[in-house]
């Protein structure tokens, strides 16, 4: 695909104004890093920062293992649990694309690629076609004690 057509650009600008923005745009970190609590590096198994001794294959197991180094373990849902912090990992066609981190108020925080951070519910993100086309769906939840 070469460039966004005019309609796509209008869509991207429009959906941004409807979101709860919580930071300015930054290329220094991505969604995986933000979900991991790191705003200084781009986390990605290929070409990015990745925890030592974790496979750099672009598969869900690598992401699960990466978050496991931070104390996360898989869990069944994204419901708010007292004493726990959760992350949600998105896949599209079985390829990891995005991660979000749960906030104490049960909402989630996501870094939109190289753009802004936002606060949202999982349903809100799913409803944005432009986003769900690129990020896919939540396939795994993980939690750790806080």
């Amino acid at each position, binding site marked *: 695909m*070469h*460039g*966004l057509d005019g309609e796509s650009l209008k869509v991207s600008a429009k959906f941004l104004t409807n979101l709860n923005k919580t930071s300015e745009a930054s*290329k220094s970190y991505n969604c995986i890093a933000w979900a991991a609590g790191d705003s200084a590096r781009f986390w*990605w198994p290929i*070409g990015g920062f990745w925890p030592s001794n974790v496979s750099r294959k672009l598969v869900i197991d690598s992401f699960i293992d990466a978050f496991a180094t931070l104390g996360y373990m898989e869990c069944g849902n994204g419901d708010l649990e007292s004493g726990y912090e959760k992350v949600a990992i998105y896949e599209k066609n079985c390829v990891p694309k995005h991660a979000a981190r749960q906030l104490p108020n049960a909402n989630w925080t996501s870094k939109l690629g190289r753009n802004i951070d936002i606060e949202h519910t999982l349903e809100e993100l799913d409803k944005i076609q432009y986003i769900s086309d690129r990020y896919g769906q939540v396939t795994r939840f993980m939690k750790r004690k806080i």
Partner: protein
Amino acid sequence: MSFYESDNNEVNELETSYGVSREYYKSVKETIEIFDLYYSVTSRENAFLKFNRLKQSWLNDVEFLSSITDICMNASYQEIIGMGPCVVPLILADLKKEPDYWFWALEMLTTENPVQTNDLGDLKKMTDAWLRWGESKGFC
């Protein structure tokens, strides 16, 4: 000797190591030279414009992507790589202006990688490594 000429030892190596016969080599060499001349004449004057057009297209496409794989496999990004080594100084100049994920392209174009493994993901450190590399080569 032109870029596509090979001396006798190289032609021998083509044949013995890669199965490229002398006849095939001769038949294709001239066609390659004509093709390269055509594209170098028609594209050289537009390299700066083409790079900036493709760069803008790339930035638009990847604005909301977190996957370095997707960011660098983008069609416009790949077309920039397809412009060949002539685009390396343009990329380095752009990197100096504003750090961005040009590292995959630079590695493909130069077959070198000055970035330390420990610095992967650190945009500033990766940028600095490539700019130092560029300075050492006299590109920036």
